[in-house]
C-alpha cells in the first residue's frame, strides 16, 4: 500500500514537471532570427562585443569601426571590389601642399538636413581639440598646424582645412602626404553635423537616436549590450547599389563556440573570428572554413635600451639564426590561414606595379646552429660576459601567448643554452611593462591604422611612441621620412624596401607570423568584404543568392 502510493506520488511529480516543460517548449518555439531572408533582404549577424564608442572622433576599436563603416561615409570610400572610390566627394585633386575635394550636391544626413563641406571642418577640428583626447588625432597630423593644435599650442581655427563654399573643401598639408586619400575613407575623418552634435549635450553617439547617418545604412535600434539593427538609408546617394535592406545583430557574445552554434542552427549568416578550439568542431562538421589576413603582424621585439643585453646585435643575430618561423607556425601555432612571416609588411601590400613582396622579397633567415653559436660567442665577448643572465620574455596571458613563450624558452635553452624567464601578464600590464621597458624580449604585434605601408614602416622610427624597444637608427629614420614625404610611388616603395632590409640586418625584431582570421559563412551569402584596415566585416554590397 505504502509503496504504491508513493509511486503514484512520484509519477505525479514527474507529470507536473512534464506539463511545465511542454508549456515552456510551446512558448519557446516562437524563435525569431533567421540567418538569411531573401524576401526581406535581411541578414543576421552576431558581434563579439557591443560597439564601445560610435563617436568617430574618439572611436579606436574594430567593432565600432565595423558599425561605422556601414552607417557613415567619408570623402572617399571603398567600393564593392574593396578599392578606394568616390564617396561624399565626387572628385578631388591631391597636390604636394594639400588637396581639394569637390562634394556631391544634394547630399543629406539621415534626418534630411544637407551634408556640407563645413561638416568635415567641424569633425576634423573636433578630433584635434585637446579636450576630445582622441587617440587617433595623430592621423590628421599631416595637416598644417594639426600637431600644435592637438598639443594645445594653437587654437583649432588654425587648422589647415577650409570650406571654400558649401561643396568645396580645401586641405593644406604641412608636408607632402601621398597616402592622404586612403585616410579620408577612415572613420576618424568622417563628417559630423555641428548643430546636431551640440544639441546632444555631450551624449552624441550614445544611442541610435544620438547620431546622424550618411552611409548606406542607418542604425534604427540599439539595445546596449544586447542587439542592434541597421536599415537601408533612403538618403544615401548610392542607394541603388545597396541590395540589402537590413543587417540585424540580435546577438552579442565573445564566445566563438556560441557563434559557431548560432550559424549551425541557421541563426546567423557569418560566424566570425573563430578560435582554434572551435575549429576542430567546425572541421568535423565538414563546414567550409574560410580565412583572411586581418593585417595583424606578430613578432619577437627586442629591448634596445642601453642597459639591456639585447642591445647587442650579435645576440639578436644568434636568436634569429635558430628561430624558424615555418616550424613555429606549422608545428606550434597550427591555426589555419596563418602564415609564417619574414618581414613587418603583410603579403597583401601593393607595391609600385605588383605586390610589394614581389618587388621587394623579404629575406629569410638561414637557420644555422654553428653560426648562431659563433654569434653568441662574439656577443659574450662584446658585452664582457662569462655567461648570459636569464633573458626575460614578456608575453600576454591569452591562449597563444603562453604557448609561444614556452616554445621560445625551450628553443633558446636547447640550441643556445640561453635561460629565458617567461613573464606572462594581462594585456594592460604587458603594455605598461612594454612602455617602461621592463623586458628583454616581448611577444608583440601590430595592426594597421590606415591603408598604407607607412602604418607598419614608421613603427620603429626613433620618435614613435609605439617603438617600445626604443630602437634608434638614423638610417631607419631617414628612410621613414622619405616614405612619409615622397610622392613618387617607386621611390616610396624603395624606401619601404630599405626599411625591410634594416629590420632584417639589424634584427630589430624577429618576425613570426601573419595572422589569419578564421570564419564560416553561409554559402548563399555573397560579396561580403573582409578588410585589414578599418571596419570588418563589411556587408554594404552583400547579396543573398538564390
Amino acid at each position: 500500500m505504502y509503496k504504491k502510493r508513493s509511486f503514484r506520488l512520484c509519477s505525479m511529480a514527474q507529470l507536473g514537471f512534464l506539463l511545465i516543460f511542454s508549456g515552456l517548449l510551446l512558448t519557446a518555439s516562437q524563435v525569431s532570427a533567421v540567418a538569411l531572408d531573401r524576401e526581406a533582404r535581411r541578414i543576421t549577424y552576431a558581434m563579439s562585443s557591443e560597439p564601445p564608442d560610435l563617436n568617430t572622433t574618439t572611436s579606436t576599436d574594430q567593432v565600432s569601426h565595423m558599425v561605422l563603416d556601414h552607417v557613415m561615409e567619408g570623402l572617399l570610400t571603398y567600393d564593392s571590389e574593396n578599392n578606394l572610390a568616390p564617396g561624399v566627394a565626387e572628385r578631388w585633386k591631391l597636390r604636394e601642399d594639400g588637396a581639394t575635394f569637390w562634394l556631391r550636391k544634394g547630399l543629406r544626413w539621415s534626418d534630411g538636413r544637407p551634408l556640407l563641406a563645413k561638416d568635415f571642418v567641424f569633425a576634423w577640428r573636433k578630433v584635434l581639440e585637446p579636450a576630445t583626447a582622441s587617440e587617433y588625432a595623430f592621423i590628421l597630423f599631416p595637416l598644417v598646424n594639426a600637431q600644435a593644435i592637438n598639443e594645445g599650442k594653437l587654437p583649432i581655427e588654425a587648422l589647415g582645412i577650409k570650406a571654400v563654399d558649401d561643396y568645396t573643401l580645401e586641405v593644406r598639408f604641412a608636408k607632402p602626404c601621398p597616402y592622404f586619400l586612403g585616410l579620408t575613407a577612415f572613420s576618424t575623418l568622417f563628417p559630423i553635423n555641428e548643430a546636431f552634435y551640440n544639441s546632444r549635450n555631450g551624449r552624441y553617439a550614445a544611442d541610435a537616436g544620438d547620431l546622424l547617418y550618411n552611409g548606406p545604412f542607418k542604425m534604427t535600434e540599439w539595445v546596449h549590450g544586447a542587439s542592434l539593427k541597421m536599415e537601408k538609408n533612403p538618403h544615401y546617394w548610392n542607394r541603388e547599389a545597396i541590395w540589402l535592406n537590413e543587417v540585424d545583430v540580435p546577438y552579442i557574445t565573445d564566445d566563438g563556440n556560441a557563434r559557431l552554434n548560432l550559424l549551425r542552427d541557421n541563426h546567423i549568416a557569418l560566424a566570425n573570428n573563430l578560435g582554434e578550439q572551435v575549429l576542430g568542431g567546425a572541421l568535423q562538421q565538414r563546414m567550409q572554413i574560410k580565412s583572411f589576413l586581418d593585417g595583424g603582424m606578430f613578432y619577437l621585439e627586442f629591448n634596445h635600451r642601453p642597459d639591456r643585453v639585447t642591445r647587442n646585435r650579435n645576440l639578436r643575430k644568434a636568436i634569429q639564426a635558430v628561430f624558424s618561423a615555418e616550424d613555429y607556425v606549422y608545428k606550434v601555432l597550427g591555426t589555419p590561414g596563418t602564415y609564417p612571416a619574414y618581414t613587418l609588411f603583410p603579403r597583401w601590400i601593393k607595391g609600385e606595379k605588383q605586390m610589394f613582396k614581389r618587388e621587394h622579397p623579404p629575406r629569410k633567415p638561414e637557420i644555422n646552429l654553428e653560426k648562431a653559436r659563433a654569434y653568441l660567442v662574439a656577443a659574450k665577448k662584446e658585452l664582457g660576459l662569462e655567461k648570459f643572465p636569464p633573458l626575460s620574455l614578456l608575453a600576454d596571458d591569452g591562449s597563444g601567448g603562453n604557448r609561444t613563450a614556452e616554445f621560445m624558452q625551450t628553443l633558446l635553452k636547447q640550441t643556445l643554452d640561453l635561460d629565458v624567464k617567461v613573464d606572462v601578464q594581462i594585456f594592460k600590464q604587458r603594455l605598461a611593462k612594454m612602455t617602461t621597458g621592463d623586458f628583454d624580449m616581448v611577444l608583440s604585434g601590430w595592426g594597421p591604422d590606415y591603408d598604407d605601408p607607412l602604418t607598419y614602416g614608421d613603427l620603429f622610427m626613433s620618435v614613435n611612441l609605439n617603438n617600445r624597444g626604443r630602437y634608434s637608427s638614423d638610417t631607419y629614420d631617414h628612410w621613414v621620412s622619405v616614405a612619409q614625404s615622397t610622392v613618387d610611388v617607386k621611390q616610396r616603395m624603395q624606401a619601404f624596401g630599405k626599411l625591410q632590409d634594416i629590420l632584417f640586418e639589424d634584427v630589430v625584431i624577429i618576425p613570426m607570423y601573419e595572422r589569419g582570421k578564421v570564419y564560416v559563412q553561409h554559402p548563399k551569402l555573397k560579396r561580403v568584404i573582409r578588410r585589414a584596415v578599418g571596419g570588418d566585416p563589411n556587408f554594404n554590397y552583400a547579396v543573398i543568392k538564390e
Partner: protein
Amino acid sequence: MTAFILKRLLSGVITIWFIATATFVGMHAVPGNPLLNAKAASPEVQKNLQARYGLDKPVTTQYVIFLNNMLHGEFGISFTQKNRRVNDIIAEHFPVSATLGVLALVIAAAGGIIWGAVTALYRDKWPDATIMLFVVVAVSVPSFVFAMLGQLGILKLNELLGFSLLPVAGWGSFGHMLVPALVLGLGTMAYLTRLMRSSMLEVTSADFIRTARAKGVSTLRIFFKHQLRNAILPVVTVLGPAIAAITTGGFVVELVFAIPGLGRYFVQAVQQLDYTVIMGTTVFYGAFLVIMVLAVDIVYGFIDPRIRVGKSGG
C-alpha cells in the same frame, strides 16, 4: 524588532562602505594603467584622457570624490564604453540577470524539493542512487561545461527535429531563458536536493510521523501535511543567499548564451581595468547581497523569535 532592524541596517551600511573601500584600494593596487591602449598615446593625449576621467588628481582626492558620488548614487561614465553611465549599465543589464536568476531559482527550488523528497522516499533504492549520482555530478562539474553541453544539446535537438524548437542563444522570449536558467540553477538544485533529502530523512524518523502513521493517516497526507512541510524549512532558509548567488553568478552562462546580463560587464570590467564599472558593479552587487542577507534575517526574526531575542540580548 525595530532596534534589531536598525542595528542590522547600520552594519549593512558599514559592510557596503568596507566593500567599496577595499575594492577601490585593490583596484588602484592592480598593476597596469586603465587608459593604456594597444596604440601608444602621446603625453598630451594621455594628459587629456586623465583629466577627462579625473585620474590626474591624487588618489586620496579621487577616493573622496568617489565616496561623495556614491552617496548620491552616481558612479560616473565607463572607461571602455565611452558614452555610457555606469548607472545605465546596471539599470539596463541587471534586470536581465535578475530575470534569468529568478527563473533559475524557481527551477532549482522546485527541482531540489521534488528530487530531495523522492530520494528520501526511495532511500537506498535505485531512484535514490540514480538521483544522488546526478547530484554529485551537478555539484562538481563547473557551469561552463553544462552551458556548452546545454547549447550543443539544443543544437542537436533542433537538427533532429528539422526546425528550431529552442533558440541556441540570444535573449527576448521565454524560450531563450529556459536552458540557460536550467544550467544556471543546476548547482543550486543539486545542493537543495541534498539538503532536502537529509532533512526529509530526519523528519521521517521523527515521533510525530510514526504517531500519524499509527493513527492510520494516509501516506499522501503524511507526506504533504507533515513530512514536506517540516522538511522544507531549512531549505527556505538557504534561499536568500542562493538568490544573490544565482543572480550574480551567471557570467559564463551569459557569455555562452549571448545573454545581455550584468555578469559579463562585471568580469570584463576587471579584465579591462574599467575603474568606474568595477566600482559600480561591485558596490551594487555588494549592496544586493547585504540586502538579501538582511531580508533573510528579518524574515527569520519573524519566524523564529529565538533569533531576535538572541541578537538583541547579545
